[in-house]
């Protein structure tokens, strides 16, 4: 079942001449994890915002084409309507704290109160998301007293608790250490297994290669490629788009080690290990 359909999407921010998104089309199936990559200014955040309805409803500007999320056409729906189906996590967790709540527990419950859920359901969901993100030990802490990494996990918990059908994450691990990043990606994977469709903007390409089903490569607002990680990271012209493939892929390219079945370079440690084992 298609959860996201983007058809010929064009977008221009108010007061600018260049298209931030130029004729973008792709479709995403339910439960897929999609990594959005590209260098700064390539349109990653604009594309993410267009899935939440913030583009065009909040930002204004020139808009063309069609975006359907979980059957809802973004242009004809309000951000509030879309927010019940699409969750969005910012790269800056500080701004995502409501500044109206005094504990992590209350902070995570904020969206659920707005949804008008019964108190017992709110508590159930908050407990679930706190457990998922390993935040139970700090649930009584004041949100602004947390470290950047903890705050980032609280921001994710607050969105996940709303149980959106689609989750868009803009650099959700930017303030996390390697262990914290791995944990967040594990959570993302388990959410996808529950049927949640996930789009993630991320510069940590090793993680993207490991966890994503497909990669959407953007450059100057245009869709360059939308394919499996092995195919995208095996492209010869990646440097032209400011992308450095994962280290395993670079090593294998240098040694000309390709997967004989697909003809592509491996992208994860597991793949490389398997190839070497088979070779032996």
């Amino acid at each position: 079942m298609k959860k996201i359909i983007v058809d010929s999407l064009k977008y221009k921010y108010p007061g600018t001449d260049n298209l931030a998104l130029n004729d973008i089309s792709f479709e995403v199936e339910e439960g897929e994890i999609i990594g959005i990559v590209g260098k700064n200014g390539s349109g990653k955040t604009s594309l993410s915002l267009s899935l939440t309805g913030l583009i065009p409803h909040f930002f204004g500007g020139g808009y063309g084409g069609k975006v359907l999320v979980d059957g809802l056409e973004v242009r004809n729906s309000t951000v509030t309507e879309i927010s019940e189906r699409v969750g969005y996590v910012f790269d800056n967790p500080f701004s995502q704290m409501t500044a109206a709540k005094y504990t992590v527990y209350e902070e995570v419950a904020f969206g659920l109160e707005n949804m008008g859920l019964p108190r017992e359901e709110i508590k159930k969901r908050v407990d679930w998301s706190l457990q998922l993100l390993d935040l139970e030990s700090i649930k009584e802490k004041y949100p602004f007293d947390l470290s950047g990494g903890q705050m980032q996990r609280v921001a994710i918990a607050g969105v996940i608790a709303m149980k959106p059908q689609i989750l868009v994450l803009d650099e959700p691990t930017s303030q996390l250490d390697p262990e914290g990043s791995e944990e967040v990606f594990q959570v993302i994977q388990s959410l996808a297994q529950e049927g949640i469709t996930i789009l993630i903007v991320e510069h940590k390409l090793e993680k993207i290669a490991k966890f994503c089903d497909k990669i959407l490569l953007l450059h100057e607002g245009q869709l360059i490629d939308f394919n499996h990680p092995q195919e995208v990271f095996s492209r010869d012209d990646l440097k032209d788009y400011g992308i450095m493939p994962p280290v395993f892929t670079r090593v294998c390219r240098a040694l000309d080690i390709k997967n004989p079945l697909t003809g592509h370079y491996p992208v994860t440690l597991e793949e490389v290990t398997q190839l070497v084992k088979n070779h032996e």
Partner: protein
Amino acid sequence: MKMTLYVAKNSIVHKSDPITKLTYCLVAAIVPYIIPNHLFAFVIMLLSISLLLLGKVFRKMIPIYILSLFLLITIVIIQGIFHPDNVTPLFMLGPITFYQEGLLIASLLIIRIINMLSAFGVVILTTQPDDLIEALVKKGMSPRIGYVIGSVLQIIPQMSSMVGTIMDAQRSRGLETEGKLSTRIKAFIPLIGPVIMNSLIATRERSIALEIRGFNSKRKKTFLRDEKEFLFGKPYQLLLILCFIGAIIWRIFQ
């Protein structure tokens, strides 16, 4: 840093309905202006101070009273010496004469100010901000206004921390921020620009974040916190409102 003036104590005032306390605060602050009588204002002031004592928070009010001293002394000097109704000299300090009429007016103003501070203290020091906002939203106040009231206390310390960061950043680039007044004024301009820009950006981002967490949802908002049982609910609020109306009627027909 949590910025709230609330003082957690186990008292009957803390357990009282936040709306009743807010109603008391407003009625107690306004009625002494409607009924311009020294004794009446003094009794209300004593009542407000008694509530502070009962709530075990009177000591927290002392710095606020001390802060208001400058204003109170100014009132005594200006009214006591310069009020246009001054006729009867009461005492002299060197060449300066203080008049009875002016000092009487000053004393009423002082009682009203102390009463007002104390009444606000009863609400602010004995009520959790969340309880008050939640009670007001349940009474029909817009959640937007509730958010503004609730968030302002938290955003101010965040902004002051941001100012510190920006100041450090500018200092590291050679900006002199300490020393003579002229140096400080010069430093103000390169500091205020980034502070305003950062605040605007943060506000914009936060409004987006609220939007996508359903803040503008048309659905009836629910509350995470269990319903609290408060003392002195609706009948007492009604009684206070009746007192307020009574004061207005008294003023009209007196």
